[in-house]
């Protein structure tokens, strides 16, 4: 075996000053959440807490402030929830208040509107929107994406299916535009990794209430019929952004096959049973603070504020331009309870991160899967790689 030994030595300019009692630097961040009219979720586990995202922000700010106390940095966060039609005015108020670092939980259209209104002298971190366009032709210089893209999620699922040799996929997708976009991402992933989509069906969203007393009786009759007679397949992929049918598929589909995607094995940024790589400490801290289990939105806001905190701590600056440059540089790295550092892709501002696959009880696996290699980082086997993106704002 050939082992090359080499050392990388980085001499550092030691500019750190030990504990100073007076805050030498003040950093203020705004967390803006746009609340849309939504239906009840299919599962009560997915009920939306009032403090969704904000609770993650409070925890992150405590984490940042603990470090800040040792370094003389004062971190403050302002939390705003807003209806879609008020989002612009809410942003204006926050900007007038002197906030120029923002974490945004909003749909992609609103995120673009807010980014353009905020202007290039401010920095926005996307902690919710997964749409491809934001990382592609519609990317904005002043928006970095902590939330993963759809392609990162579908690549994570497809890599796992391929690792299991489940190469023949039966894709069932919803009828709304968001479901179609997710289905597109699965088609792209299948092509990327050599899986074959042997059959596709559309599950129409016909509306109706989410809650009926014995709905499972009907589901048990409807789903087998709906999935009957599909071409031979190894696994079923559910593309159901609208939360209409994905959770109904496991056990009910005609052929006994595993379900992945919006039901069965789901790709997530985080979930409350994740314990690997020290995550137990995160879960305990979060539950103590919020009195409930963590949701993806909380983790994504937590991570966004930690990204800002880390950049502030290393640069000793609160200037959005300085922070953005540092975040996109090779020097930036952050631990995120996922076993390896998370960093940004300089070509479209997307945070590289492992994606957890969960059966909603445990971490079943974490993608990228073994054997998927990349010349830069194996994390770049998930999502849009540099040659694939139409984003030019970062050039």
């Amino acid at each position, binding site marked *: 075996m050939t082992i090359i030994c080499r050392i990388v030595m*980085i001499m550092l300019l030691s500019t*750190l000053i030990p504990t100073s009692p007076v805050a030498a630097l003040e950093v203020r961040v705004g967390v803006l959440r746009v609340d849309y009219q939504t239906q009840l979720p299919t599962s009560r586990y997915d009920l939306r807490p009032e403090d969704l995202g904000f609770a993650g922000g409070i925890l992150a700010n405590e984490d940042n402030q603990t470090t800040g106390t040792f370094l003389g940095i004062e971190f403050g966060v302002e939390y705003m929830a807003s209806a879609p039609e008020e989002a612009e005015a809410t942003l204006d108020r926050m900007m007038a208040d002197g906030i120029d670092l923002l974490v945004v939980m909003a749909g992609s259209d609103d995120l673009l509107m807010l980014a353009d209104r905020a202007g290039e002298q401010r920095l926005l971190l996307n902690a919710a929107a997964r749409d491809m366009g934001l990382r592609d032709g519609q990317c904005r210089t002043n928006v970095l994406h902590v939330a993963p893209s759809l392609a990162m999620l579908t690549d994570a699922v497809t890599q796992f299916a391929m690792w299991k040799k489940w190469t023949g996929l039966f894709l069932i997708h919803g009828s709304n535009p968001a479901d179609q976009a997710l289905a597109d991402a699965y088609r792209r992933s299948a092509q990327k990794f050599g899986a074959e989509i042997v059959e596709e069906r559309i599950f129409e969203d016909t509306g109706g209430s989410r809650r009926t007393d014995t709905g499972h009786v009907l589901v048990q009759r409807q789903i087998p019929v709906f999935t009957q007679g599909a071409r031979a397949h190894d696994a079923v992929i559910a593309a159901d952004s609208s939360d209409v049918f994905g959770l109904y598929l496991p056990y009910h589909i005609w052929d006994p096959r595993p379900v992945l995607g919006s039901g069965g094995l789901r790709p997530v940024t985080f979930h409350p049973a994740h314990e690997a790589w020290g995550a137990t400490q995160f879960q305990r801290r979060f539950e103590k603070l919020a009195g409930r289990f963590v949701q993806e939105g909380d983790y994504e806001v937590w991570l966004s504020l930690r990204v800002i905190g880390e950049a502030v701590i290393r640069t000793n600056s609160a200037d959005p331009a300085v922070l953005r440059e540092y975040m996109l540089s090779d020097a930036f790295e952050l631990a995120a309870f996922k076993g390896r550092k998370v960093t940004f892709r300089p070509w479209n501002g997307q945070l590289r991160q492992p994606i957890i696959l969960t059966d909603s009880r445990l971490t079943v696996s974490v993608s990228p899967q073994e054997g998927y290699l990349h010349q830069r980082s194996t994390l770049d086997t998930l999502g849009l790689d540099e040659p694939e993106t139409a984003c030019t704002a970062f050039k």
Partner: protein
Amino acid sequence: MKLAIITALALLLSPPALANKVYVSNEKSNTITVIDSTSWEVLEEFPAGNRPRGIGISPDGQHLYVCASDDDTVRVFDAETYQELWTLPSGPDPELFTLHPSGNPLYVANEDDNLVTVVDTEKRVVIAEIPVGVEPEGMAISPDSRFVINTSETTNMAHFIDTDDYKIKHNILVDQRPRYAVYTDDGSKLFVSSEIGGTVSVIDPLKDGGPELTSKIGFEVAGIQPEWLQPVGMKVTSDNKWLFVALGPANRIAVIDVEKNAVKDYILVGQRVWQLAFTPDQKYLITTNGNSNDVTIIDVDAQKAIKSVQVGQQPWGVVVAPDK
């Protein structure tokens, strides 16, 4: 995967050494495996509470201290009979600790509460609780006992805690997720390993005007993804010449020339190598390999792995009894 074994010869040629007991904490099987340091045979495996991780021994070799992380306590065992004697109040989820060279007190990192707890090992009471950064983990004490070092995994700092007044006197920022800290025996250098950052920070603790980060050591092994080069446990030889660094999922020990701050070699060991311990004569270094359920014995002078010994499930920590 098994290592090539050249043990028999190597052992026959060595001068007769004192037999010392090697204690390995098995995180998953909730036990301690006891190994004889001359025959490298397993002598015993005994229960040690829930999720035993950090492990240490009193200077007189009588008491074995084990962080039973899921029991929120430090269990104290008779090192000869393996009977549990008593527990020490450690604070919640203790993971690693360091003992004062005199054997008292014990300094424990409590990951959940962002505290370092100081425990009197004789009176079995908490003497002090020191607020530190988020998720404290690595613990070390300077050879002159003036400072206890704690590393905090999310704050990414090494905190210098004064052992007289339990106040933090200095903080040094290091790379992501600092796991372990160790001094050279002469006190001239302090090393801090950053698991996610993939580096070992070299700190001059005696610098005029306070401790200073002087350099960082990185790792590179052909055929291994850089993100899996994750430095964790470390030990430095008492002649201050060689630093051994466990590289976790890279399944290797890095051998670092302390004077040059440079990697000299990598030694292939078991899977997910985590913590290290020397025999008292420093002829051998024992590594715990969490995912292959064994320990690797390294010949320190030859800088070669000579044997692996099967232990319990997911070995985590290791300590060797002092000479009697």
